[in-house]
């Protein structure tokens, strides 16, 4: 790289991010600025959200009729495999890491993440890994077809005989994604432990940062276990080891343990940051402090711990001994306690508040309502007898889509609308946002609610054709699915148009508490004019207390609405 001297005023702190937001080319360069990387993550993730969503549209079109008449059965298998894999590995993880990347350093008063270059590498592995996964359409035999869980012995069969096949590419792609996530985990944990601004004690740290910390701890203890399983799987396919080949002394159920030891907690990797966002959005838009902040913060860590002891509930039907089923049934249900505490805290937060039904608030409320429903069906699934009845049916699909779309995607929307003015310096269009919410909320109910009766009646998952008696609910679900597909359009229209020429937002359009609102929108290169010195907690609505000691030099924060 050529040596370029930068004049001092070009890097002056406190100056709005140079060239932003109209200099979109900046986001296509290698950058070590956590804000640029955050937006790179978010935009990349949305791209794969659309790709995975298009696959879901094909799946729902196929299921409009009982016959497998739209796509070939192997194509159908590949579609649901890649839909799941893309949505988990290349949409939900990256978009949440992106939001956390953008927000955590701002919220804890740091200039950047602890390891900016590692951060950039972590991001750039994502498009590489996703391209590898999608490239599997081009190899003989097509992409992986054994679901996003890739259970052996199905996944270790290699009918084409090629070493480079869809399943191998899938494993390599997931491995690259895993390395990226572990590096991200190291980065987040180090940042949160060591880079907090003076005065930012643990219990002055926003609930979102607690949630990110808890989620990243899961990445650090869980992901390596999946990596161990994936290495064994890869060796079984490529060099003929026999870890999961029963005919040679191996045991395929061991893979399930490796897989679910990570992949169940992975749900909390995805949902905890969303809980964090709910905890940030609700107090601002209800003008009240977060009720039970400390308990909500600690409950994130409690979920992290319990989530490591529940994985066998995915294997109740895998010849699991009764004592083990009983143990994991109890631990699974225990997760409901910290989760319930959070919901209670959120309800108490908005109780009696001056609620503003802005788009982020609507998405947060919608997401919480879906979470309550998903939590209840989760309790059903956690109990052994019901699980054995609905195992591998659409009941399960309905349950986890309520978690993944109803809660997590809606929570992500809430977060994006809430912090959009901070990221871009511009305000989104409220009308379009509300239209987006209405379509999404109705779409979620229309597609995922019918899956519950379908599952109870016994419709199996992962099938391209089904018994005609299931057609009624399937047609409703498919129509709901198309509505959900359409719901993305107003969002994209809104974000793109308001990013280009939306009304100027100002530094703190929501009149919110929290360090991120103290700086300009979008924030300058190193976030703050000077490092804030924190003197109180982040939810001081109605308390009329200063947030930082050096506020005068940092910028203004409007007084909370209620006093």
């Amino acid at each position, binding site marked *: 790289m050529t040596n370029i001297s*930068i004049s001092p005023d070009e890097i002056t702190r406190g100056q709005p991010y140079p060239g932003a937001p109209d200099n979109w*080319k900046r986001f296509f360069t290698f*950058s070590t600025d956590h804000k640029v990387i955050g937006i790179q993550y978010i935009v990349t993730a949305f791209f794969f959200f659309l790709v995975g969503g298009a696959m879901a549209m094909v799946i729902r079109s196929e299921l409009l009729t009982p016959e497998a008449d739209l796509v070939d059965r192997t194509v159908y298998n590949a579609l649901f495999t890649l839909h799941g894999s893309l949505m988990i590995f290349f949409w939900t993880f990256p978009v949440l890491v992106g939001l956390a990347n953008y927000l955590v350093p701002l919220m804890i008063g740091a200039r950047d993440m602890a*390891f*900016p270059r590692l951060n950039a590498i972590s991001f750039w592995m994502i498009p590489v890994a996703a391209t590898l996964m999608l490239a599997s359409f081009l190899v003989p035999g097509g992409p992986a077809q054994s679901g996003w869980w890739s259970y052996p012995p199905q996944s270790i069969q290699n009918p084409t005989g090629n070493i480079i096949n869809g399943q191998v590419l899938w494993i390599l792609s997931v491995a690259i994604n895993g390395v990226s996530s572990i590096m991200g985990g190291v980065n987040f944990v180090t940042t949160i432990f*060591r880079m907090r601004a003076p005065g930012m004690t643990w219990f002055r740290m926003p609930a979102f940062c607690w949630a990110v910390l808890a989620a990243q701890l899961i990445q650090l203890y869980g992901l390596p*276990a999946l990596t161990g399983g994936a*290495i064994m799987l890869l060796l079984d396919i490529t060099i003929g080891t026999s*870890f999961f080949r029963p005919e040679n002394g*191996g045991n395929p159920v061991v893979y399930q343990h490796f897989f679910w030891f990570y992949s169940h907690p992975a749900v909390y990797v995805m949902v905890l940051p969303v809980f964090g966002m709910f905890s940030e959005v609700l107090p601002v838009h209800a003008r009240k402090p977060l009720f039970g902040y400390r308990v909500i913060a600690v409950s994130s860590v409690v979920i992290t711990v319990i989530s490591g002891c529940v994985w066998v509930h995915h294997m109740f039907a895998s010849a699991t001994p009764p004592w083990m089923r009983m143990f994991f049934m109890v631990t699974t249900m225990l997760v409901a306690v910290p989760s319930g505490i959070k919901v209670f805290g959120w309800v108490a937060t908005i109780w009696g508040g001056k609620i503003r039904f802005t788009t982020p608030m609507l998405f947060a409320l919608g997401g919480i309502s879906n979470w309550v429903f998903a939590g209840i069906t989760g309790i059903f699934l956690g109990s052994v007898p019901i699980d054995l009845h609905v195992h591998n049916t659409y009941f399960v699909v309905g349950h986890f889509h309520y978690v993944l779309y109803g809660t997590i995607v809606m929570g992500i929307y809430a977060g994006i609308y809430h912090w959009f003015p901070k990221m871009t310096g511009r305000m989104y269009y409220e009308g379009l946002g509300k239209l987006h919410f209405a379509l999404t909320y109705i779409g979620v109910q229309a597609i995922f609610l019918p899956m519950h009766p379908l599952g109870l009646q016994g419709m199996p998952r992962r099938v391209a054709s089904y018994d005609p008696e299931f057609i009624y609910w399937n047609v409703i679900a498919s129509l709901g699915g198309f509505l959900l597909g359409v719901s993305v359009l107003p969002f994209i229209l809104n974000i793109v148009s308001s990013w280009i020429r939306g009304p100027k937002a100002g530094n703190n359009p929501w009149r919110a508490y929290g360090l991120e609102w103290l700086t300009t929108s979008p924030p300058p290169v190193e976030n703050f004019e000077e490092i804030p010195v924190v003197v109180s907690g982040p939810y001081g609505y109605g308390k009329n207390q200063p947030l930082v000691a050096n506020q005068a030099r940092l910028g203004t924060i409007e007084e909370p609405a209620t006093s």
Partner: protein
Amino acid sequence: MTAERAIAQDIESEVRHAQEHDEAGNSKFGFIVFLLSESVIFISFFVGYAIFKTTPVGEWYPPGVTGIETKEPLFNTLILVSSSFVIYVAERYLHDYLEVKKNGKLWGFRLFMLLTMLMGGYFLYGQMVEWSGLPFTVQSGIFASMFYTLTGFHGLHVLTGIIMQTTMLRRSFVSGNYDNGYFGVEATSLFWHFVDVIWIVLYILIYVWQ
């Protein structure tokens, strides 16, 4: 703003950022977190090993094999474990050199780092000899799969450690290299201790528990 300017600005920002924060402390903390995470991969292999061994689906050992030779691997183990002390001595020499520069014992660091590398290299050589003398291949059943994967994966870590040591040794010939502390050497040393501890567990699992 051009991309080059943007990158130059990032670097400028990083330098200042490094001055404000205890970057070496962050690196050490981060590296320990990474090692803890890395150890879970090995733990998952170890747990897998225990499950496969205690709840056998078929034969544990390949046909004609009743156990595995332990003497030479034990010698190898002693070499590897002692190298952990050797690299510690190297690190102390560097520490003393940087604290009291006039004594000028950088040669001590270089000597003991080189010794560590040689011991690591000898370990790998010993493992190669062992592998080539074994009567089974990776495809000979579950024990063979587990054996080659565990020792091979560990061997890769040893190799990584040796590469790190080579880099650190080479760096000691670059002047002014220790102006920002010697975290690289600390990380290499930590990694080497980690590789050793993993080997001890691995040795007990594979060679002792037969």
